[in-house]
């Protein structure tokens, strides 16, 4: 029975992937990609990888989907204004490069020895030392904390990259269009009602991440979504990129992470080695510090490059 359901799921994922590539309308392809992400999350649930499923829904479908919808609507304006659609050669090259990447990944997966190499047993044996109950959090915040630090730093660089696309006259200004909506309308209503609930849920997801699926990334995505909703409802404006408090909020999380990592180095271990007895406390401090920074980072990535004066 479960196998029949999995078969239906896989067929739907492959069919939707093909449809997303073949369909001509950019917006339709984006919606196809969004639903594809949701189905992929169901596949992860079926593999009992709940943490991956949560991240896929939040980042893969939600955030990337929102970015792609923004890109699709911009592309539509450019194409209708100039009439320059990509030529046959460009399309063919893009298709070939994508197929090569997909083929390379498939070859890597098929070349794995059976059973695949795993460190799961080592993680399970040593998880007690970290003080957290969720092995994913243990790996991300203790055994491979350096990877998580680099991940958070890469997102910061992504914001710098997006900002660098700003034209000179708009530098230091605000991103995107100024959103206005009816102050008594339904969007403004949702912008007032939903954020308090969303903030509580984000903190809950961060907190249960110690022992159950969840964590700072998923919580930060919810916070970023709430912020974006309030901006789109016209209740607050995007902060100008020259604002000092905004830049401090961006770097605070990674800075706390690096500072506590240096404490580990000074305490005699290595960089990011948590001192014995303090593991759980330090992991919680880092996660709590990272979540707001990540939320601001993701929100600014969605907002895009500054385009109008402050």
């Amino acid at each position, binding site marked *: 029975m479960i196998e029949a359901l999995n078969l239906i799921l896989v067929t739907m994922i492959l069919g939707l992937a093909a449809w997303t590539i073949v369909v001509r309308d950019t917006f339709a392809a984006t919606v196809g990609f969004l639903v594809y992400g949701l189905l992929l999350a169901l596949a992860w649930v079926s593999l009992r990888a709940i943490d991956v499923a949560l991240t896929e829904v939040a980042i893969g479908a939600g955030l990337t989907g929102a970015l792609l919808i923004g890109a699709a609507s911009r592309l539509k304006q450019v194409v209708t204004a100039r009439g320059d659609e990509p030529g046959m050669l460009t399309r063919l090259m893009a298709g070939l490069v994508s197929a090569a990447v997909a083929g390379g990944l498939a070859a890597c997966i098929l070349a794995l020895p059976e059973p695949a190499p795993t460190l799961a047993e080592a993680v399970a044996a040593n998880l007690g030392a970290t003080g957290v109950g969720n092995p994913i959090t243990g790996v991300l915040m203790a055994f491979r904390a350096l990877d998580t630090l680099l991940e958070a730093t890469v997102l910061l660089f992504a914001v710098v990259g997006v900002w660098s696309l700003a034209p000179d006259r708009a530098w230091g200004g605000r991103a995107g269009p100024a959103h206005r909506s009816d102050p008594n309308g339904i969007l403004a209503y949702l912008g007032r009602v*939903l954020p308090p*609930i969303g903030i509580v849920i984000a903190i809950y997801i961060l907190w249960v991440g110690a022992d159950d699926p969840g964590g700072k990334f998923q919580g930060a995505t919810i916070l970023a979504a709430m912020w974006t909703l309030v901006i789109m409802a016209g209740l607050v404006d995007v902060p100008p990129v020259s604002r000092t408090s905004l830049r401090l909020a961006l770097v605070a999380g990674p800075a706390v992470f690096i500072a506590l990592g240096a404490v580990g180095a000074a305490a005699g271990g290595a960089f990011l080695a948590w001192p014995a007895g303090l593991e759980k406390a330090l992991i919680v401090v880092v996660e709590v510090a990272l979540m707001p920074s990540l939320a601001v980072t993701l929100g600014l990535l969605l907002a895009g490059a500054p385009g109008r004066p402050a």
Partner: protein
Amino acid sequence: MSAIADILSVAAIVGGAFFFMAGTVGLLRFPDTLTRLHALTKADNLGLGLIVLGLIPRLDSAFDAAKLVVIWLLVLLASAVVSQLVARAARRGGLQQ
């Protein structure tokens, strides 16, 4: 007692699945945006509500049941708002049929 709970669960989940099916058929077959929205809200509101109702007897803790109910309420809120936004865009002629 557990037999009654099982019967309730199955009945509610089958009912929920029926509303999802009916909503999907309506979404595909109805002629314009407003009637399609009408079909879709049946799936969101009644379909998901009945499925949540059917799942509650199968949970161990009241906290988990409360979480499911909160998810249903949030979906109700979101679908009501999105329906309004889509309907307004359609009325202004921004959407093709």
